[in-house]
């Protein structure tokens, strides 16, 4: 690993100013992606600002929404009584990320800021139509997720919390890559009084996306049978050593069916 400077910031304004002043500063949350990436020399920030001392934890029921502090770890989300009661699909999603040791360190804010095209959380953010709160502003999911590994965050902007509206029903089903546990395809289905939303991770060439034709079918008839074979196009889907675009297209349909069944 290249040498780097490590600072544990005491508050958000200090954290932001250190990153602004550094040549290539990065915020460090759980580090479950960033540190392995630095070890492989795929990233070489000259300064790391650890957000662990800035608070940013806590999970609150706000009535129509659940608000999750950005530094909440996957294990905190998976085991939260509030989330298990109000949006169990998010708790279930968190319990399937990586392995136990990754869940003991990795955070929801870190995962969303990284916006890995195969990560689980972006599908919950987009599927539920959640909102990202930073120290400066609130950003709705569609505006926040701008592409593969890309978000609308400015360089010195820090996610402080994420709020998720409570759906009538929701479920997340993924087909994990057996080695990495990342989603080869993951589908988050959320049913609200006025609409059904379907967000797909692990498959899109531009990262997580909403499957509008599946949404239309499920708005018509919220039943697994509404998803017919061949209804997902392989255009704009990833093709790699793990799966072809055609196979991913098939998995999107199947994972959506399973998610709809899991909603019942």
């Amino acid at each position, binding site marked *: *690993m290249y040498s780097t400077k490590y600072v544990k910031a005491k508050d958000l304004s200090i954290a932001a100013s250190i990153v602004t002043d550094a040549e290539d500063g990065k915020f460090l949350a759980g*580090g479950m992606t960033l*540190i392995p990436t630095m070890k492989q020399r795929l990233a070489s920030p000259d300064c790391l600002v650890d957000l662990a001392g800035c608070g940013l934890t806590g999970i609150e029921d706000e009535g129509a929404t659940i608000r999750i502090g950005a530094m909440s770890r996957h294990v905190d989300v998976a085991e939260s009584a509030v989330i298990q009661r109000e949006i169990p699909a998010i708790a279930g999603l968190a319990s399937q990320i990586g392995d*136990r040791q*990754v869940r003991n360190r990795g955070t929801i804010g870190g995962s969303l800021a990284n916006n890995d095209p195969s990560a689980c959380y972006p599908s919950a953010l987009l599927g539920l139509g959640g909102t990202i709160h930073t120290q400066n502003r609130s950003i709705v999911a569609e505006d926040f997720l701008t592409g593969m590994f890309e978000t609308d965050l400015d360089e010195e902007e820090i996610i402080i919390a994420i709020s998720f509206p409570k759906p009538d029903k929701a479920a997340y089903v993924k087909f994990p890559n057996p080695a990495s546990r990342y989603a080869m395809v993951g589908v988050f289905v959320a049913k609200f009084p006025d609409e059904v939303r379907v967000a797909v991770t692990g498959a899109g060439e531009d990262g997580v996306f909403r499957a509008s034709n599946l949404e239309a079918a499920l708005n018509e008839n919220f039943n697994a049978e509404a998803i017919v074979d061949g209804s997902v196009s392989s255009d704009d889907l990833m093709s790699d050593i793990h799966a072809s675009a055609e196979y991913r297209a098939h998995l999107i349909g199947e994972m959506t069916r399973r998610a709809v069944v899991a909603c019942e």
Partner: protein
Amino acid sequence: MTNISMNVNGNGLTHEVPDNTLLVTFLRETLGLTGTHVGCDTSQCGACIVHLNGESVKSCSLFAAQVDGAEVTTIEGIANGDKLHPMQLAFHENHGLQCGFCTPGMVMSAIELVTKNKDLTEREIREGLEGNICRCTGYHNIVKSIQDAAVKMS
């Protein structure tokens, strides 16, 4: 360089380390606690698992500076003098190891599993070991050891 203080296996200590020192490097090379192994070094295999404030973490994917002020337990810190920890004893009695390289991580992982859930099913044990890889593929006896230890620890 950063000054770090932590409690490792019950001993408080303070050291100055380069900022990019990984926890596993600090444990092995600075403190000489070589029971914690580096297997894959890419946070897949779990040979480097230690407990951080009672929870299992992969010490190859943490900076020593991040755990400043924390309590760390390694495989060297779980026995009571000459008396093995019930998990170590169970691995010994059930032949829960072949080459032994993954064993420290397996034991540390297993202790957290059993501590958090005493009524573990075999499936829960296998799923709970997702972050540990045994290249000898000796999983059957590892699972058996953990089931045995769960009884002894309850």
